[in-house]
């Protein structure tokens, strides 16, 4: 079937079997390998992308769900237009050592951006509750939580500019 959607700001049309997962489409057909597949059982969150602004696990999403929708992947995350900088959440992860091996990081970032967008005044408890669906097997949660708090604050500050 033919599916048309907006991928990281660009109109995109693909020809694909309905029994295809969005994670497979991204990685194998569109060569966007920033979206990781960690568990393939909806547990780990390494494959989180934003579908119409909401965080979803792309390993548990069939491609027909993309039809007419807007999809944002880790490759589409960026700082202020023209700034040539990373997204404030990405900068916070770098600044606060929010990653070790980095495998879970794309999903952590996508979930974190969604959390901070939905609730600008995040508490640490909100962050820990919100990250329940993202697993870091390096167990580096302490700095991930610190990074998300700092990234959310930076996103708020950027909004005010």
């Amino acid at each position, binding site marked *: *079937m033919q599916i048309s959607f907006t991928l990281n700001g660009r109109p995109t049309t693909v020809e694909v*079997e*309905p*029994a295809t*997962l969005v994670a497979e489409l991204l990685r194998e057909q569109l060569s966007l390998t920033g979206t990781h597949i960690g568990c*393939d*059982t*909806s*547990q780990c*969150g390494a494959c*989180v992308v934003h*579908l119409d602004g*909401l*965080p*979803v*696990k792309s390993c*548990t*999403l*069939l491609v*027909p*769900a993309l039809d007419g929708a807007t999809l944002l992947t880790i490759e589409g995350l960026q700082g202020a237009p023209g700034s040539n900088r990373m997204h404030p959440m990405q900068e916070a992860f770098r600044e606060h050592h929010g990653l070790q091996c980095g495998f879970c990081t794309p999903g952590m970032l996508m*979930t974190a951006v*969604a*959390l901070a967008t939905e609730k600008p005044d995040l508490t640490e408890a909100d962050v820990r509750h*919100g990250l*329940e*669906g*993202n697993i870091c097997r390096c167990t580096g949660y302490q700095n991930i939580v610190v990074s998300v708090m700092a990234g959310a604050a930076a996103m708020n500050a950027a909004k005010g500019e």
Partner: protein
Amino acid sequence: MKPFAYHQPDQIPDAAKLLTSIEDSKLVAGGMTLIPTLKQRLANPPALIDLSKLGHLKGITDDGDSITVGAMTPHAQVAASKLVQTKIPGLAALASMIGDPAVRSRGTIGGSVANNDPAADYPAGVLGLGATIVTSTREIAADRFFLGLFETALQPGEIITAIRFPLPLKAGYAKFKAPASRYALVGVFVAKFADGVRVAVTGAGPGVFRVPPMEMALSENFDPSAIAAIKIDNDGLTSDIHAEADYRAHLVTVMAKRAVDAALS
């Protein structure tokens, strides 16, 4: 996954017709249970019937003395609804505890109720509040809907369109979750109405069930202390790698007390 045909009807009668005419076809709402099932090849339906184009099934409406939640409404929308937070805060709290944010973006109330997983959260809220399941053909009271392990009163070709919740005086939900899956090891929903209290338990047995002794005690005195000494029978409760039946029975009392606390706060 094995290949399947994909249908996206925009009218309920069309969806019902596809469901009855294609043998072993499956409805897909949010897909949070069905897609993992397909990936593990535990099911190989020849066709999926996607309900997402039936747009009028999504949304929450205020009926005055009740709230109607469309079957395709995702958990995140129920959790964030000001209407639900104001009128039935216990239900909004329940929705906010399901799975994780990504699951709550996609998973729907209709899918959860139709699937009737023995450890799902919504069946406890639906039974605890004495809600009405509205389908493509009729209305079914929650007390007659949940029939046990993944089994419901739904007939072949019947599709849930909405769940209608009466407004309680007070209601609360508490769950002890399995840490990896975040399903309820035991979850208890408590709702106080003018004519009595309802207590519904999920996770503990093969299906959601009510606890009449707790309901009677709480109708007399809506306080956690009223049920502190009531322990339910282990018989028929689930024993698995996560917990033994006697531990689950113990948790029912603990979670019921916490649910009453939540309802009172």
